[in-house]
């Protein structure tokens, strides 16, 4: 029996990276800036978007919703009169736990790219898998709620390392939970030294203005030539 060894030396996620670059090129061509919004389930991504997007002055925004099943979140975004496109990942084996570049690629024809300046991709709630898969975003933003505990950066270092902004949500719960902000910051700086962070409560609206301002500035930033 004859066997041949074939040298490959290829990153197995190269195919995803290639599609992600194609997505980004499409978004760039349309002049659309893209945020990949990630968090654990229940950290408050959708509530934050409901709080932020209606008052984003001068920015036309669209949302791409990734969920394992159902349209609950998409319905909420539609409720604030923001164009929303849904991707359900359940066609995979029991439902994929993240969006990948190909899923976003298949949704592009349904996106109103000519009518928006900013696309927020709300990823599937998960702190592990979405970190591995670029989807064509310009920036990655993650939401970490104080209810999750201050140790999460150490447990999910890849997620915390690959984002450009951390939104610390649910600070209205601080009196009720054992969450030490100094320790959280220390852990966050251990895995991603100096990453910008904003404290807020999507429920009360406290601190949300800073995130809205950040989004507005990001959306209107000129594309690098």
């Amino acid at each position, binding site marked *: *029996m*004859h*066997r*041949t*060894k*074939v*040298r*490959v*030396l*290829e*990153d*197995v*996620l*190269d*195919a*995803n990276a290639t599609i992600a670059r194609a997505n980004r090129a499409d978004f760039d061509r349309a002049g659309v800036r893209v945020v990949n919004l990630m968090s654990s389930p229940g950290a408050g991504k959708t509530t934050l978007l409901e709080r932020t997007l209606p008052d984003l002055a001068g920015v036309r925004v669209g949302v791409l919703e990734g969920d394992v099943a159902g349209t609950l979140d998409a319905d909420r975004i539609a409720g604030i009169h923001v164009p929303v496109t849904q991707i359900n990942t359940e066609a*995979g*084996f029991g439902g*994929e*736990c*993240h969006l*990948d570049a190909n899923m976003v690629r298949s949704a592009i024809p349904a996106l109103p790219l000519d009518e928006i300046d900013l696309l927020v991709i709300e990823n599937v709630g*998960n702190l*592990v*898998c979405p*970190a*591995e*898969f670029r989807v064509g975003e310009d920036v990655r933003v993650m939401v970490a709620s104080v209810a999750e505990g201050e140790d999460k*950066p*150490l*447990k999910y*270092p*890849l997620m915390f*390392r690959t984002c450009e902004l951390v939104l610390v949500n649910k600070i209205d719960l601080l009196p009720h939970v054992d969450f030490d902000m100094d320790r959280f910051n220390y852990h966050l*700086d*251990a*895995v*991603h*030294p*100096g990453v910008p962070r904003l404290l807020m409560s999507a429920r009360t609206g406290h601190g949300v203005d800073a995130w809205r301002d950040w989004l507005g500035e990001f959306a209107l930033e000129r594309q690098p030539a």
Partner: protein
Amino acid sequence: MHELSVARAVIATATRHAEGRRVTVVQLRVGHLRQVVPDSLAFAFVHVAVGTLCEGARLEQEVVPARLECAGCGLGWELDEAMFRCPRCGSAGVRITAGDELLLESIEVADEEDACIAPR
């Protein structure tokens, strides 16, 4: 969790390089920082491989420890906890020198004449 997607990506890459031949061994380098659980990946690989050129192939995983290097003082060290700061000078300017790879290193393929042998 994402081991299933990783298994699919491994098989897709291996299949592309196999050029129609049956794959008998897949050698993968898995960086410690990639949060891949080797046992889960092995399990997913067996199932996802069914019906592909990789069906029945042996998946060999080499787990690569994470190594960092400080741009400030030049110290190199192996990461054992999630601390991306130089333990000697405290600098945040650190570079990952190993441990973030997810690399299909090589495959072994069976040549044409024994492509139709009965499964072992």
